[in-house]
């Protein structure tokens, strides 16, 4: 299984990259231990942008803490606030209007689209293929404008509140119509891009077999999200979430676990997201979007897992007289760091950043205080 395990002899050269580097969109340090341009081992140092969100959340009123979780990450901000609200809702037993659930799913899937498009564009940029990168960024702009239309801001929308969604984010007929039209546009553009991308033999030969993560290793490293599905494991938390009960979608997998599989799975998942949004537009029920009739009481630790664009997101906190206690957040990139370090091994230095990018890193999410327990 471990054909990529580093040789145990002494490695002489080390190349540090970061904390500011063009191939990374966020601060982190990676130390590459190389031998004749082949990476033998990689070490990613995070903690550069540790801001202590859980510490800040401690003792805040739950509504405030929810909107604070949005500032954890600028890419999957909606996922954080959604899951944070969901944690409290599950603890307090708040019933959420059907319409609000649908709007949350539309936002969640739009966010998945923009996250996956960012991934594709950034991946192409690290490949130095500026043209493809531009094309995807152009598609992404359509999604960003839809998000701005629903949430009022391009990045942090603050869509979910306890008991539903903000009334601002309610979707009227004209918004639904625009959503529908733009989904057609996005699908057309993405189909065109995917066709060009897969038929480009130079790019395909460049990215296949790079940064391979075998399935067994992925399971061992507890990799989540599309990175895991790209190794052939059909594991998607959306299939178990009650919000997605009324929706019909496929869990996409790819066999190889290399950069090619990872790029393709993002493109294919984007089509599934478009499918979900279309179902939501057709089936969205009438009614109010927020339920204000709920009582606050003290609870024990409440937990919630959801599937976000990058994998499994976990939030947990207890409630004491309306305030958050013992908050824990576990983001998907946290468990994917092992995969990033593993995927670099055995590739050229030029591909090292590509191998890191293929696991869709979000170190701003994952900068938490970690206690390493050695047994």
């Amino acid at each position, binding site marked *: 299984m471990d054909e990529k395990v*580093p040789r145990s002899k*002494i*490695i*002489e*050269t*080390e*190349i*540090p*990259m*970061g*904390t*500011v*580097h*063009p*191939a990374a969109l966020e601060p982190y*340090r990676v*130390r590459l*231990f*190389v031998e004749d*341009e082949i990476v033998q*081992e990689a*070490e990613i*140092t995070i903690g*550069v942008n540790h801001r202590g969100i859980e510490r800040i959340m401690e003792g805040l009123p739950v509504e405030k803490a929810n909107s604070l979780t949005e500032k954890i990450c600028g890419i999957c901000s909606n996922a954080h606030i959604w899951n944070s609200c969901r944690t409290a809702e599950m603890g307090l037993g708040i019933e959420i209007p059907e319409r609000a659930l649908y709007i949350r799913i539309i936002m969640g899937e739009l966010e998945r689209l923009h996250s996956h498009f960012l991934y594709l564009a950034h991946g*192409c940029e*690290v*490949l*130095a*293929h*500026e*043209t493809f990168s*531009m*094309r995807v960024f*152009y598609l992404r702009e359509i999604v960003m404008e839809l998000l701005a239309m629903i949430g009022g801001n391009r990045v942090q929308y603050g869509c979910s509140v306890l008991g539903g969604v903000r009334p601002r984010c309610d979707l009227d007929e004209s918004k639904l119509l625009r959503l529908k039209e733009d989904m057609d546009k996005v699908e057309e553009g993405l189909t065109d891009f995917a066709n060009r991308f897969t038929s*480009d033999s*130079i*790019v395909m*030969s*460049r*990215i296949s077999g790079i940064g391979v993560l075998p399935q067994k290793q992925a399971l061992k490293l507890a990799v989540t999200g599309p990175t895991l599905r790209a190794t052939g494991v059909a594991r998607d938390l959306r299939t178990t979430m009650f919000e997605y009960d009324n929706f019909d979608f496929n869990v996409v997998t790819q066999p190889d676990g290399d950069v090619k599989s990872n790029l393709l799975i993002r493109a294919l998942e984007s089509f599934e997201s478009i499918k979900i949004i279309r179902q939501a537009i057709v089936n969205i029920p009438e009614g109010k979007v927020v339920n204000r009739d709920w009582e606050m009481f003290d609870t024990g630790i409440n937990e919630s897992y959801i599937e976000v664009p990058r994998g499994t997101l976990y939030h947990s906190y207890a409630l004491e007289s309306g305030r958050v206690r013992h908050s824990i957040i576990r983001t998907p990139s946290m468990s994917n760091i092992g995969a990033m370090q593993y995927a670099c091994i055995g590739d*050229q*230095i*030029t*591909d*090292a*950043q*590509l191998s890191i990018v293929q696991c869709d890193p979000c170190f701003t999410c994952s900068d938490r205080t970690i206690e390493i327990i050695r047994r």
Partner: protein
Amino acid sequence: MFENTLINSILAVIGTVLVCFLISTLLPGIERKYIHARIQQRIGPVVMAPGIMAPIKFMFKENVEISSPVPGLYKSLPIICFIVVLCVLIALTPQAYQFPALASLVAVVGFLKVEEICYVLMGALSKSVMSVRMPFPDQVKGAAHLKTTKSFIEDISAKRSLRMITYGSFPLYMALFAPVTAAGSIFLSDIVAYQQANGPFLFTVSGAIAAIVFFIGYMIILNEYPFSIIKAKSDVIEGPYMEYAAKYRAVVYITRGFFMFVLGAIFSVLFIGVPPTILSWGILVNIAVALIFVFMMGIFSAFSPVFTNRQLLPTILGATLLGILSIVLGLL
């Protein structure tokens, strides 16, 4: 009488160089605006911006203390590069054909080699802030492998440019020597005379193959995508040029545009038989060839990712074999 001819020749050479230089400053802008930006469906910068305006801007910047073990040598390297490119252009003008030692293919190849060696030195001497010198507390934490030598990212690009000298520029030199087989002489005057008598070498089978090889070599020596391994953004950022600031960066910018033009001029001399001189309309051919090369390079680089050593080796090997084929065809 003799002095008159000498002065006239010198004036003609200076005029040619000036015209070529002015046109060459537009080439990076043309590539950026009319090729890359057009393909990417955006407006793009002003044509003058990357080629002329950026160097002028850098001229007016403060000359900072650069981080290099041998700052004097490091700063002189772009100027050497520029002079080398200038010498190649002078060697191509018909006035220089009276000096066979200068106006021969061996001299041109020698100049190009100097250019490549400059990249190695630049890479080895540049110690930028972006890798090892970045103040970050990762020593105290230890690592998987202790007692390693910390290497600057420019050191990788120095090693890569060394590798490019050994095999990377083979296609270009193969293509340069293909016309020799037809003309039977390494002197530029003979090659030009042969083509003016027998028609351009480009339109023979051997010449057409050699032209393709020349184009690949042109992209390799200009470090354009996909062959930009020594300054790939995904790992070495700008490679050898990392530490140049102010005036020296201006020279780097100017040299790139000028080098694009001069390589086009080499092609038009060797494959079409039209030397660059302002005394004839032939210079328009030179300009057209330079423009066509820039256009083709822009299109190729917009549609290809950066190659690693794994793709580079077969590409260069294939191009070299094509070059050998064209030489063999020329000899037959």
